[in-house]
């Protein structure tokens, strides 16, 4: 059931509820056929953005285009969007079949056609045999798939999903993620997927748009979001456990992180930071990118740390470290040599370090070419 997809364009879109601003000037283009994930903590405006596309909310200012057409004043029913709600919004008094057929009947789709489409959708989602059940007689996963089926039979150019997996247990969720991606490949529609779960975002999105406080933080591929976070918010939000962020002062080729915590910055970074003329910085270090040594290192080559707590998470081990008055996390996946404890030295792989400006938290960039990873790889 391939559909002709359309693109979606937010042009300085703003949404206010009374005195509360949910979205501040969103500029975002979703390409036709693309799978975009809106990611952010609750209250960041991601669901609002989705509902604006659906027409369930009206834009306060700015323009919203669907397929190049101004959509600000279109009724939801005129927009040709299919949507899966967080709570699935299945009509409790209708059977599975009636739930799926309802929208099509309203649109006066021919009976035969309705039958064919539902059959196909049920087959795709493995719902055969459940046609006569009512929602309350279904399991959570089945309900979610009925909601999906109801959305896909519409064969709409836009496919909107509002945290569709949040009510499922962990195992089902993993399974559903792959199903969703497969489904999208079949449908070919433009899909916006809203979630607060970074794993879902990373696995489902071709691109991820991260929102916080109604402001768009970064839009990029999952790899770039992870490897090249645009600011401290993204850096901290993506990755588990989150990135260590250590404020410091750059003096020449030296970085002072605190009392007795000094690092020598290698040449390429030193020149780069000099060029940014920013001496108050925040250094970002992912927990998996640090090394702990038992033997001492030269001054400026590492930081003296102490282990305060350790956690065994099965596949990996987490170490909570104290370096002077700073706290850090380090993680070690299985197989890596583990330190025994006591006085340790933490060393850094400078190829995996991030620097942000202290004031606005924006990334200071990288001294090497940042465009090596591109969107094309995922097309």
């Amino acid at each position, binding site marked *: 059931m391939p559909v002709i997809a359309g693109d979606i364009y937010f042009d300085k879109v703003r949404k206010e509820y009374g005195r509360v601003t949910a979205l501040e000037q969103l500029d975002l283009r979703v390409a036709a056929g693309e799978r975009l994930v809106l990611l952010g903590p609750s209250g960041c405006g991601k669901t609002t953005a989705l509902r604006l596309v*659906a*027409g*369930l909310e009206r834009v306060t200012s700015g323009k919203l285009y669907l397929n190049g057409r101004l959509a600000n004043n279109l*009724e*939801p*029913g*005129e*927009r040709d*969007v*299919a*949507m899966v*709600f*967080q*709570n*699935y*919004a299945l*009509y*409790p*008094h*209708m059977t599975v079949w009636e739930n799926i057929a*309802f*929208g099509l009947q*309203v*649109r006066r789709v021919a009976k035969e056609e309705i039958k064919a489409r539902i059959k196909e959708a049920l087959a795709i989602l493995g719902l055969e045999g459940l046609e006569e059940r009512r929602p309350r007689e279904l399991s959570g996963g089945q309900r979610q798939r009925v909601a999906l089926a*109801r959305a896909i039979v*519409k064969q709409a150019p836009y496919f909107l999903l509002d945290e569709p997996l949040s009510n499922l247990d962990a195992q089902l969720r993993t399974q559903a993620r792959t199903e969703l991606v497969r489904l999208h490949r079949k449908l070919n529609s433009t899909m916006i997927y809203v979630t607060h779960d970074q794993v879902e975002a990373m696995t489902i999105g071709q691109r991820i748009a991260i929102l916080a406080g109604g402001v768009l933080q970064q839009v990029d591929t999952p790899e770039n979001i992870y490897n090249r976070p645009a600011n401290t918010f993204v850096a901290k939000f993506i990755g588990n456990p989150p990135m260590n962020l250590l404020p410091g002062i750059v003096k020449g080729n030296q970085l002072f992180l605190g009392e007795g915590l000094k690092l020598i910055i290698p040449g390429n970074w030193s020149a780069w930071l000099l060029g940014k003329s920013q001496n108050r910085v925040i250094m970002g270090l992912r927990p998996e990118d640090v090394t702990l040594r038992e033997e001492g290192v030269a001054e400026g080559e590492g930081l003296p740390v102490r282990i305060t707590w350790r956690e065994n998470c099965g596949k990996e081990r987490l170490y909570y470290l104290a370096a002077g008055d700073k706290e850090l996390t380090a993680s070690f996946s299985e197989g890596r040599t583990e330190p025994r404890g006591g006085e340790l030295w933490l060393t850094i792989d400078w190829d995996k370090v991030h620097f942000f400006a202290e004031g606005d938290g924006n990334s200071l960039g990288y001294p090497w070419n940042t465009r090596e990873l591109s969107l094309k790889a995922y097309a």
Partner: protein
Amino acid sequence: MKTKIPWWHFPLLLVVLGSLLPLIWMLATAWKTPEQVFNASLNPWPYPATAANFAYVMGAIPLGRYILNTFIIAFIVTAAKLLTSILAAYGFTQFSFRGRETLFYLCLLSIFVPFTVTMMPNYLFMSRMGWLNTYTGVALPQMADALGIFLLRQSIRSIPPSLVEAARLDRVGHGRILGRVLLPAIKPSLIALGILFFINTWNEYFWPLLMINDKSMYTLPLALQMFTNLEGGTNWGAMMAAATLASLPPVVAYLLAQRYVVDTFIHSGLKG
């Protein structure tokens, strides 16, 4: 635990007794001869029982006609109240516009306007329109009910808004959103409310008393007063027979649907 149970049944049984005793006496007196009425008023078991009071009542008043009058009025009022309440509840929940809350609270305020404050102008209005002694006169002022609007608004708000949103995305019109999505979802509340409206209208005394003075248009509660006329002397047996007959339809309806009625009352959030 078992030893605990009987003790608490005692106060409950007292309450049940209080609820039932007046009814038992109504029934008993209806079957008594005038002599038994006065000389054995405490006896709840009329022996020998007589159906004379019922025969007298049936002969004295056109009972069928009164049942029909009462039913028609109760039906019109119930249907109209449900219709206006449903529409208004839909309007208050599905749209946002300036002054919506103010308007809603204004509606609610009407619950607290005592009937006596409005009765006089309404009475004059009806009499000027020539609607005294008509079903219209009795039914028209009761066709909207703020309590109904309030309770249905609560019910609609208790179902997830996404149900309606999903329908809107499917280009479902307002009529069908209401008819096929919302109403089925709040069916228990609707039924409970309908029953409540029906019983209340069936039992209404005051407004019909003002509106109707034509005997052929009486409702059952009004017919009762024909047996309490002062100069004629009260025939208690007949009066209780009439009271029994007037109560029979709602009581039978209630007993038949009893579990359902009470359950819907309990589960439909009619608590407000």
